[in-house]
């Protein structure tokens, strides 16, 4: 497979995952806000901006309408939903012959839908329809991909992109909440705090799965454990890293480039997560732990780039 093609598939997948993640976060936030006093809500805007690595408003003023616009339909913000969907589509457009027609049509349809949306007061009131459409569009694309594309090398780059992005985004999101862990995190929380932690779970589509495992009693420590270390839930950090590792192993096998840097890095991160206990994580500093996950994920990303996408030609010729 052409390096450029692999690169495009990888980034297409990352951008689409980012769009979906952003849509869900704002959607959940919007619902949460309805249950909260305005004061409690304002602090969350900053956390949301931080979790999404979005630019802060220049005048430092928080205004829901402006912020929602920046995060959704603002084309000048490169991480807004519209920018991400456009970038995903642009990447796929560059490698159209590599994907199935169904995949292209699905992503193109999502793109046309997002681009025909006009920001307005009325739209804002019913924006959940829009966020739902973006999430569904992304899910549909994933389903179409899995059932119409060969699960060969190209598909593996799509997997890789999705889960590298998810690992990073989850780690960052969890990080923004860890700083507000209560003194005794293994106790059930109530009222405002309850809403915050449920909000976090919902932002990861994890509320129902969490309840199944731990009942509806929400304890911050359990939430952290579930989102960081659960091996079965697709929006946990550990699950995402497992998928990154699996995709990298498959790619190494297919390209006959075994035992190279990216597999090793992902393997190490995977081992760390699978042997971690939440108590130990807390004891040694949860923030540092999450930060280290992000850092290792970043290293794996760089290594992927250097080995598969942009390797030095001299080296390749001497093989």
């Amino acid at each position, binding site marked *: *497979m*052409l*390096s*450029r*093609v*692999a690169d495009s598939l990888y980034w297409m997948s990352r951008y689409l995952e980012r769009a979906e993640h952003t849509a869900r976060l704002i959607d959940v936030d919007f619902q949460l806000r309805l249950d909260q006093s305005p004061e409690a809500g304002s602090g969350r805007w900053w956390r949301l901006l931080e979790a999404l690595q979005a630019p802060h408003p220049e005048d430092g003023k928080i205004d829901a309408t402006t912020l929602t616009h920046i995060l959704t339909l603002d084309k000048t913000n490169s991480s807004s939903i519209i920018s991400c969907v456009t970038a995903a589509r*642009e990447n796929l*457009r*560059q*490698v*159209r*012959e590599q994907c199935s*027609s169904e995949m*292209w*049509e699905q992503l*193109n*349809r999502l793109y*046309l839908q997002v681009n025909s949306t006009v920001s307005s007061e009325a739209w804002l009131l019913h924006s959940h329809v829009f966020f739902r459409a973006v999430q569904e569009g992304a899910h549909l694309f994933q389903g179409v991909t899995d059932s119409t594309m060969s699960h060969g*090398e190209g598909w593996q780059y799509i997997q890789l992109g999705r889960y590298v992005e998810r690992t990073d985004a989850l780690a960052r999101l969890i990080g923004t909440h860890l700083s507000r862990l209560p003194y005794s995190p293994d106790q059930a929380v109530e009222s405002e705090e309850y809403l915050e932690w449920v909000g976090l779970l919902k932002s990861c589509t994890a509320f129902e799965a969490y309840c199944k495992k731990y009942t509806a009693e929400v304890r911050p420590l359990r939430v952290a454990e579930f989102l960081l270390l659960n091996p079965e839930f697709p929006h946990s950090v550990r699950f995402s890293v497992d998928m990154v590792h699996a995709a990298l192993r498959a*790619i190494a096998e*297919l*390209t*006959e*480039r075994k035992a190279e840097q990216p597999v090793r890095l992902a393997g190490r991160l995977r081992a760390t997560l699978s042997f971690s206990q939440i108590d130990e994580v807390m004891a040694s500093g949860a923030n540092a732990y999450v930060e280290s996950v992000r850092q290792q994920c970043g290293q794996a990303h760089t290594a992927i780039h250097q080995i*598969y*996408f942009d*390797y030095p*030609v001299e080296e*390749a*010729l001497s*093989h």
Partner: protein
Amino acid sequence: MPESVRTLFRPPFRNYQFDSAYDEMFEAPGLPRPHYQALFQTLLELPPEEMRKSQQAADLSFLHQGITFTVYGNDEGTERVFPNDLLPRIIPHQEWRKIESGLTQRIAALNLFLEDVYHGGRILADGIVPRELVYSCRHFRREMRNLTVPRGIYVSVCGTDLVRIPDGSFAVLEDNLRVPSGVSYMLANRKVLKKVFPTLFRDYGVCPVDHYAQALLATLRALSPLTSSSSRHEPTVVLLTPGVFNSAYFEHTFLAQQMGIELVEGRDLLVHDNLVYMRTTAGLKRVDVIYRRVDDDFLDPLCFRRDSSLGVPGLFNAYRAGNVALANAVGTGVADDKALYAYVPAIIRYYLGEDPILANVQTYLLTDRSQRSYVLEHLDELVVKAVGESGGYGMLIGPHSTAEQREEFRQRILAEPRNYIAQPTLSLSRAPCFLDGEAQARHVDLRPYILYGENVTLVPGGLTRVALRRGSLVVNSSQGGGSKDTWVLRA
């Protein structure tokens, strides 16, 4: 009033108009030609609402599939759906046979001409084609002199524009020997029409076109430099695209996908020791044949335009060394220069000793003093074209022009007479198109695609382009044109 004329006034033909142009569907008002009878009947019986729904479904399907082209010089919404018309253009078998043999003859002669021009130059020495006409052509490539191309084939893929003139015969309007495009629309149109008129399609007995991609691949493989003693048996064929911003990008992805070959950009390729490689995730891989959809100028910054970032440095040397084949060859533009076009009938007679099967359109060469003064006096009747342009750019259509435009062209012609030619304003034939809920007559042309590999292959039909604006004679997609499916009937 006879029955046949009365049907003329029934929808959807109520407002169908005739003029001096040849009408593809009607022999006389209300009297369809025999091969159009079944379509005519179907349209009379079909509720217009039904057609409108089909048209909407087709448009939407084109939009979702992203069957678009890019309009240059337009910042906003650069991607546009290529308009497609649902009424097929029908060509009887006998007529097609003549087109086929005419185009086969033409591509054979033009190939011999290119080989000659880049080697001995016999035809120039014999005074059939003026030497200065060839050497002053912007697309003549000195670098190609005495370079042997695989099988002596310069033009592997050709798209020739034909028009039907009022007497009903087909004439060649121009040859496209560099990077002709549009074949993907031909295939897409067919797919849509099979859905819209399944029964009609079957009953008509239409020659299939779906094997185009396979024929193209075979044509490209025929150029492979690999010999039976090579360690690799299957040649690696790639399609080189200028990239996503090119107007024909959809077509590039489509053809690569249909042929099952890699779609590469210049940055994916590199040359080392005169060998061409592509950069893959598993390391570098040798490339043997390049179907390039990049113009000569941009192929290799070391050899042609230095500011090109679309090309591959060193590619021309690898080509010269015979390690990679290019389709089409470099320098074919000299043979589709619009001034050289006037000499094609002579070229056919010179190399093949045959009379041309398809006629040319009368062409005035502006380097000739008497022809030039005639043209300058009759600018309001003629069409003036820049010799090296394509896509409907750089044209003056006399009858539709303003005095100001004519004055501008007069100045340009006087400044650079070699750069322009003039032709009579042709009354292209008209065919019914489904517009605004009814059938309306619009001017059409026909671009068949000719493949030249081990032998010459034409997929029956080609792209019928339509000037969708009322009265317009320009069919190019960049100038408000559309297209429709072309049905060549089985014997």
